[in-house]
């Protein structure tokens, strides 16, 4: 479904991603693990068109999207939920969700599905997005991305800044999306145990390169992952 080939991304003169290749199969849940500054966000931003790659290719559904602007990639069915969420703080929850379906009319059925997945949003439909808690905003950001009925969902650090109970709620929703709705998901995350529970496959990124990859079970048992990310000696 998604193939990233030897992708290089630079901010100004500094290269941040050096020749990364990943593959995401239809229906898979893929973890992208790495510490702060490993280049995960930069990689995801380049995939969804918010940053330009200097070299390499991104192929989505058999078509190269590496030079497409972000809005076209979004319309093609690739949704991205950035770590900063990028909500519209002065607009209501409902308007934020409606924007997710742009340029199409937001379908009532889809809206209902999203509100069923995140019941907290239903209660707050008329509230301004900026007045909600971090957890609710994260749910809204995911809900907004789902409104377009994407085929591939990229998430950057969905657990950052959330209380553990809300992290459970967010990951519970992602689990439902993977298992029941067959959505393909890529999650960049520092909370490694969580994301490896969700994912069936994963990549470990360090200093802008993929240094390790394998199934979730393989990564969980890998001594390097245990040492660096799971806090085991």
């Amino acid at each position: 479904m998604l193939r990233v080939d030897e992708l290089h991304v630079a901010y100004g003169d500094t290269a941040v991603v050096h020749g990364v290749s990943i593959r995401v199969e239809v229906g898979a849940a893929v973890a992208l693990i790495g510490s702060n500054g490993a280049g995960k966000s930069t990689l995801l931003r380049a995939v969804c068109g918010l940053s330009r790659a200097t070299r390499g290719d991104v192929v989505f559904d058999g078509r190269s999207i590496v030079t497409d602007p972000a809005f076209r990639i979004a319309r093609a069915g690739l949704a991205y939920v950035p770590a900063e969420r990028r909500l519209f703080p002065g607009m209501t929850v409902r308007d934020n969700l409606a924007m997710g379906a742009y340029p199409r009319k937001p379908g009532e059925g889809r809206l209902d599905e999203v509100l069923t997945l995140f019941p907290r949003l239903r209660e707050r439909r008329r509230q301004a997005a900026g007045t909600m808690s971090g957890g609710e905003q994260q749910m809204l950001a995911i809900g907004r991305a789902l409104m377009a009925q994407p085929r591939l969902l990229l998430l950057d650090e969905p657990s950052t800044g959330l209380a553990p109970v809300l992290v459970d709620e967010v990951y519970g929703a992602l689990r439902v999306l993977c298992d029941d709705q067959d959505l393909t998901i890529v999650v960049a995350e520092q909370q490694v145990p969580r994301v490896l529970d969700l994912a069936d496959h994963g990549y470990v990124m360090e200093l802008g390169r993929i240094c390790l990859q394998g199934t979730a079970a393989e990564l969980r048992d890998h001594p390097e992952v245990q040492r660096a990310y799971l806090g085991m000696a």
Partner: protein
Amino acid sequence: MTFLLDGIVFGLQLSLVAVGLTLIYGLGGVLNLAHGQLAVVAAMVGAVLLAAELPMVVAVAGALAAGGALAWLLDATLLRPVYRLAGERRVLLSLLVTLGVAFLLDGILITTQPFTALTVPVAGPAIDVVGVSMRRGSLIASGVAVVALVGLIVFLRWTRFGRAVRSMVQDEEGAALCGVDLSRTRTVVFVLSGLLAGLFALTQGLISSVGATDGLDITILALIVTVVGGLGRVSGAVVAGLLLGIVHALASFYIGAFVTIVILLVVAMLTIVVRPAGILGKVS
């Protein structure tokens, strides 16, 4: 009562010229210092068409088209490099670019049309409004302004494209992630602001006249209203326009016309100090 009505008539004009400016600032981070010149170019086209004894409809269409087309041209050419920058640098470059455009247009207008002014004649006697005798031109101008402003607010609030415009004002990147074509949306709104500037020129022509050298004054008034209403807030600009219109009418009667612009500037300064997000904004 007379002050109030005069203030509302002038205030609606202020609102009309300010909404275009505030919209493109909110949307593109571009403070268009040539906004007044857009109105003046539209006025000159209208005046020339009227002087050629063409029907009123043609003159109106010509003036609006001139405002819209000039805005489109600006957006498609000189502002392209501006949009590539972000944040403060974008605002700064937009100031320099549009200031250059303003001077250029002023130069062209003053050398080619030094004595042209747009006045839109309306026949018929004055009309009595709650005991005050109002000129027909002023009433028609106000009616047109109300329709345009209400239409704009309805468009922004209740259409899908309007919602996309609002979302872009709030978060450009978020809007792009939702599938909003930023560049196309900006172009549409820029053309809309040009049309509104043209409409302002026509309604101002109904009330008094628009001359070749009026660009800077119009821009300054629009800027003051935009600041008082809160940058990027259309409803704020409408309320601020009405408020400043009434202040203007009172000040010119009680103190004198020479000092009104200073008083309006003082209102804008106070707004920045007391309510930096504009009169409708939240106190921070």
